[in-house]
């Protein structure tokens, strides 16, 4: 250690044999990791591989059971995040830690006010921030309220906040999950400039292309242990994916775009508009046609109306205007379909937020496996069908788990005890098992392991080939490019373009995702439309 600390080439971060156990789960197993100063180090691995736990230990949220940490060659104890900040470690979380109602400047200052009187403190902070912004290229409107800032700017604000607190080592947790391709490029430009300034960056991600584009070295974790650490020049995305999963995976396109069946569309929506209670236009004049045997991808940055589109089509909420034609039935605003009717019409829905909507976390798997279909005759038993046919339901759940490779194969296990990928497979098994004519699926692989992603993609393709019309909402462009036969792009609650899959690439989609829609074609909503919403 003495030699390296003198030579100035000590690793900025050195984790030595870190082990951490949560009950029966060994989250980290003798993990060792060195990050040289002024480099970008990627940390990749499937969900549950232990990346987040490792970073939480580095940031002082958890304490390692065994092992120790060295920062710049000095052995340190990090008991909490305050000590981490004092050591020059900054963390940008996937979910931003900002106060919506405060200005950007106030958010940076919060908890680190340099002077007793706020006006003076603000002046000082503003000067420092303006210097930082010039130096790093992190442009943020300091006086804007956080709630009004776009996601890309919020992220820059988070980074700025960490740098203002003296971070020399920056941990970024899935930073590009919420960004458009263009915003991602901007972010990477900033990160490169930070690297030139000597900032050390630890990048947690599962987007291997980004690792290849930005990182100097990368560490792959699997099942709590380090599989390998390599310089970026010595590896490839395929190689990394294989190390992460432990076998070869194929996440690319499988075959040509399917030609949808001729004849009647499976679902036709026209002129859908939704306004929030506050009168904000969430969906504006959206029209969409799904044909049997095609997957239509909905691309767009999260929060541009895709969620509302799914909710409206699935009958979770009624629109303020528009009509829907599905399975020979017509619905219009004011007399919209409800989730039960939707299921009766063979319209299945895999919701974006599986924890909030798709399952009841406190239910065992077999109870979650009936959710939405609990009134079907097959699940009834006893006098007047008042009881639940638990034996049949358990058998059905066991079959679903077998067909969709849900692990562990334990129908009695609580829904919350399964990993994200297995929860999603259970929900897909439930919905696909009903042989739907239309499947609405939101973020099917969010928080899901690479191995499970491959499986889920194949199931969706099989469903399409069997003649189902699939609407796929995903914020992962890769996923849409891999699955969709046709892509519509949403921005600010409108469909800003539609492309055949052959015409799609990162650039063409990215431009549509960032396109400013023409405000002239906003239809007039009926007065007070936002307030009169069919709420649960």
């Amino acid at each position, binding site marked *: 250690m003495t030699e390296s600390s003198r030579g100035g080439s000590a690793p900025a971060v050195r984790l030595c044999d870190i082990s951490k156990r*949560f*009950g*029966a789960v060994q*989250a980290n197993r003798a993990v060792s990791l060195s990050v040289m100063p002024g480099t970008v180090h990627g940390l990749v691995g499937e969900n*549950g591989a232990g990346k*987040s*736990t490792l970073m*939480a230990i580095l940031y002082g949220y958890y304490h390692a059971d065994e092992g120790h940490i060295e920062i710049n060659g000095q052995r340190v104890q990090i008991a909490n995040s305050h000590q981490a900040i004092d050591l020059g470690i900054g963390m940008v979380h996937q979910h931003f830690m900002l106060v919506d109602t405060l200005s950007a400047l106030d958010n940076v200052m919060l908890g680190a006010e340099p002077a007793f009187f706020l006006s003076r403190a603000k002046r000082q902070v503003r000067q420092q921030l303006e210097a930082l912004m010039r130096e790093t290229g992190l442009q943020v409107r300091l006086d804007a309220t956080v709630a009004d800032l776009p996601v890309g700017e919020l992220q820059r604000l988070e980074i700025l906040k960490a740098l203002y607190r003296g971070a020399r080592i920056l941990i970024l947790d899935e930073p590009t999950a919420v960004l458009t391709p263009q915003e991602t490029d901007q972010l990477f430009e900033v990160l490169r400039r930070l690297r030139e300034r000597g900032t050390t960056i630890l990048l947690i991600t599962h987007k291997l292309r980004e690792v290849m584009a930005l990182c100097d070295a990368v560490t792959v974790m699997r099942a709590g242990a380090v599989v390998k650490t390599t310089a970026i020049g010595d590896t490839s995305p395929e190689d990394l994916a294989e190390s992460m999963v432990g076998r070869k995976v194929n996440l690319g396109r499988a075959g040509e775009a399917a030609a949808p069946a001729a004849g009647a569309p499976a679902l036709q929506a026209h002129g859908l508009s939704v306004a929030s209670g506050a009168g904000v236009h969430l969906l504006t004049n959206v029209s969409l046609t799904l044909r049997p045997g095609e997957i239509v991808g909905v691309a767009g940055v999260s929060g541009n109306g895709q969620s509302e589109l799914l909710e409206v089509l*699935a009958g*979770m909420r009624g629109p303020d205007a528009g009509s829907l034609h599905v399975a020979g039935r017509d619905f219009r605003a004011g007399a919209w379909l*409800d*989730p*039960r*009717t*939707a*299921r009766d019409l063979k319209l299945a*829905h895999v*919701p974006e937020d599986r924890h*909030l*909507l*798709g*399952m*009841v*976390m*406190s*239910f065992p798997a077999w*109870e979650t496996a*009936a*959710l*939405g279909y*609990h*009134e079907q005759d097959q*699940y*009834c038993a*006893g006098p007047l*069908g*008042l*009881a*639940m046919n*638990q034996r049949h339901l358990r058998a059905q759940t066991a079959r679903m788990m077998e067909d969709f490779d849900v692990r562990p194969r334990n129908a009695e296990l609580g829904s919350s005890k399964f990993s994200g990928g297995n929860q999603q497979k259970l929900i897909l098994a439930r919905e696909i098992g009903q042989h739907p004519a239309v499947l609405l699926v939101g973020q099917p692989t969010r928080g899901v392991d690479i191995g499970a992603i491959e499986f889920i993609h194949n199931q969706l393709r099989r469903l399409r080939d069997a003649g189902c019309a699939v609407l796929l909402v995903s914020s992962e462009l890769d996923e849409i490019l891999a699955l969709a036969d046709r892509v519509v792009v949403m921005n600010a609650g409108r469909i800003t373009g539609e492309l055949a899959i052959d015409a799609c690439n990162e650039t063409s989609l990215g431009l549509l995702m960032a396109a400013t829609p023409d405000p002239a074609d906003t239809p007039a909503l009926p007065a007070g439309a936002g307030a009169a919403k069919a709420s*649960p």
Partner: protein
Amino acid sequence: MSSQALQMPRWMDLVLLPLWNLLIALLVAGGVVLLIGASPWQALTVLLEGALGSARGLGYTLYYTTTFIFTGLAVAVAFHGGLFNIGGEGQATLGGIGVALLSLWLGPKLPAVVMLPLAVAAAALFGMLWAAVPGYLQAWRGSHVVITTIMFNFLAASLNGYLLVNWLRPAGSMSVESSDFAPSARMPAIHELAASFGWELPSSPLNLSIVLAVLACFFVWWFLWKSRAGYVLRAVGANPSAAHYAGIRPRWQVLAAMGLSGALAGLVGINEIAGVQGKLTLDFVAGAGFTGIAVALMGRNHPVGIVLASLLFGVLYQGGVEVSFEVPGFSREMVVTVQGLIVLFAGAMAMVSAPMFAKLYTLVSRRARQAEGKSHG
């Protein structure tokens, strides 16, 4: 990964932890008893002796237990529907009013075989309707059920007083009570039944309502975990958004949960009015509606736990009365204090010691693993 769930086996969670909580409560209560200069050991022996030591004492204990089972189940059903019903007191009062109105009207005309089932139905119906109003107000009008149910307790007490003073009190009577029911409207006492089989039991308020309480336990268990309606109710209680996704209408489930909860609480009227008093009286619920909250908390909202917790509170009530008679300086208020301590430690603070047990278990199991590893290595 981020939330560190407590790791311990089921027996630890369901048996050891409640016993430990009870022990702490008794230790603290013992300290308080010492403070007033009485002997904790004497108090405890008198309490247990009084509650369980004689057939008469046991009869009283089980009579209290019956009432607590009804109010405990009521709280539990609402809890599984995601609602905190603290209006058991008022719903039980209305149950009693229902029994009284029906018994005074039809009691003289109908035989017991018809009258008693009708009285049970009336108790359940009145309790149900009384609870359904706050349920409706929560589901459709957004008034929180905790606020409305506690308000409805006062309304129920006032209604009972009004009915007794102005309508049900026999002319010329000074006491605020209705006239006595006809014998056919009386729930038979257990000692009377035993006597008709030639088995001599001392007189106690214990009556056939206890059978009704046991049936109610089975029904609640079946309803919550075997029936489709219970499945729907629990889905709404655990996750209203997921229930909406599943095509369930959460509003109607709120109404249903409150209705069923109120019906169970209303059955207290059978035990107290048809079983013990034989007439409508003022304040016959006497706080059992609130004790039901503690019972449900301790019983983890499961019928088996509720029966055990009800027994515990039955012992405390009956034994407490004996202690206040027998032990000098031990007043009624002292009994209430001890009961309060048990509610505090075993109910409200039930999970305070859980992390300690979890840590202990992790430590022991790790030691065991290491020892195993060594013996293998």
